[in-house]
């Protein structure tokens, strides 16, 4: 029998499959489809210190095997997350990851301090959201800038810290190394790719913000390449995501070196996809006589 357990950042995950920030709410909606305790973990919707209403106008748009979104970090703020959402999330009996975004250093630091005193298992630092004006992604383009912010956050942070990279970074491997050097306990990637759509009938950009973030199966080949590059460049565990829709996709990321996996857009396409993927990985391992994921991780 295959053993899907994963050790990383001093913790044990039941299996490598987490659900990605912004694609799973705070979990509740999916508890109508399956038992969430079967998951390796759940990332919260991207949080900011104060609540945010999100962007105006159209927020989601389908493209060939992809989704462009411009949600704009609509969220209840860290305080309400802690009082209202976190207790529910903890009740699902799986790892709870708080995804934290911010516009300023101070926002990040105050957010971290508040999360320190909770039973969040892990903090995912979002320096990569393309959908808020001066938000998040500004920190995720240049390695030097990322190094600064991650260093400061790390010294304030009492939880394991995973830094989520943007595929829009100038150099993804360099960026990962900068975050590792700044103290990141883990790297996750990719966030969405900056993209655009035009409504030719209206002669207007689809999104009020003009640019927005692309995700889904269409980005998988790019995400896999970046995850592979980063796995070769850093020693900390890497959490791979981007377009994963099947156990085969997930195994590709593991073979590329990923320790953990996140499922994002896939949750929209098939609400129980994460469970299909967990089961599919187990089947693959059994069929190929693979006992633990260590046997295939990073073999490419």
């Amino acid at each position, binding site marked *: 029998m295959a053993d899907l357990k994963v050790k990383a950042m001093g913790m044990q995950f039941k299996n490598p499959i987490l659900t990605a920030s*912004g*694609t*799973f*709410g705070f979990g*509740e*909606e*999916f508890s*109508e*489809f399956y038992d969430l305790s079967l998951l390796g973990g759940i990332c919260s*919707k991207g949080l900011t210190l104060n609540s945010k*209403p*999100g962007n105006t106008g*159209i*927020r*989601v*748009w*389908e493209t060939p*095997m*992809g*989704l462009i*979104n411009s*949600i704009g970090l*609509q969220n209840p703020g860290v305080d309400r997350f802690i009082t209202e959402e976190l207790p529910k999330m903890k009740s699902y009996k799986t790892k709870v990851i708080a995804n934290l975004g911010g516009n300023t250093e101070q926002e990040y630091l105050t957010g971290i301090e508040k999360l320190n005193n909770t039973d969040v298992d892990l903090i995912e630092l979002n320096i990569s959201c393309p959908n808020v004006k001066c938000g998040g992604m500004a920190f995720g383009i240049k390695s030097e800038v990322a190094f600064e912010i991650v260093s400061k956050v790390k010294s304030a942070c009492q939880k394991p810290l995973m830094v989520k990279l943007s595929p829009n970074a100038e150099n993804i491997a360099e960026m990962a190394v900068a975050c590792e050097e700044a103290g990141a306990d883990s790297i996750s990637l990719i966030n969405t790719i900056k993209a655009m759509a035009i409504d030719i009938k209206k002669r207007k950009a689809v999104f009020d913000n003009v640019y927005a973030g692309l995700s*889904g*199966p269409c980005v998988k080949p790019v995400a896999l390449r970046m995850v592979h590059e980063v796995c070769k460049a850093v020693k900390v565990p890497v959490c791979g995501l981007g377009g994963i829709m099947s156990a085969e996709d997930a195994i590709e990321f593991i073979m590329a070196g990923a320790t953990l996996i996140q499922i994002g*857009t896939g*949750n*929209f*396409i*098939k*609400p*129980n996809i994460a469970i299909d993927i967990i089961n599919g990985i187990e089947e693959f391992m059994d069929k190929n006589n693979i006992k633990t994921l260590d046997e295939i991780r990073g073999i490419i």
Partner: protein
Amino acid sequence: MKTLKSKILLNEKVLNNIYKLVIEFNSEIDEIKPGQFFMLKTLDNSFLLPRPISVNDANENTVTFLYRVEGIGTTQICKLREKEEIQAVGSLGNGFNLNELNGKIAVVGGGIGIAPLLYLTKKLGNNADVYLGYKDCVYYNEEFEKYANSVTVITEDGSSGKKGYVTDYINYENYDAVVTCGPEIMMFKISDGCKAKNVSCYMSLERRMACGLGACLGCTVETKIGNKRACKDGPVFLSEELLI
């Protein structure tokens, strides 16, 4: 628990680009309220996001949908045949609250917006006055006859029923509540009419949806108490709550 997949019992053309789809559904698993919807998708990869389609009718063992072929998703869905499987996630959304719909009710549909109103009319038990507005071709009005107190058909070109817009034919003051689904411009005209006469107006809104579950926050409806999700907090809203 919600259903994820179902067998197709029927998928046939009603008229032009209007189709009727009937799927197997076990009403013991989940009770369906009028105004709720399903997210439908073919099992292949010919498109990515499931498409929201309202429940047109429901029985113990089946759910019926009435849908218009619009673009890539509905084009693929309309090719599915009997006995094939379809991904049908539901039932979703708040639906109409039947407890709030007491007294004399007007049910007003425009175009394919009539789809969710049949099941509602049925649940209202032969009480509602139904107004159905079409551009030119009329369909499904006879189904409404079975369950309505009265059915008024209006076409823009006058080719069937009365001529003009539905909004020309409703006396708001006759009703305790008006329920509507159709083009937003029609619904807002109705909501203005209701407001003037102090009649509650419930409308079923359409928004682009990615998940349909309440998870992506893609389907925002601005209300007086902040952003709501059309899929989870709606699609039915009391018009006076809206900020549109």
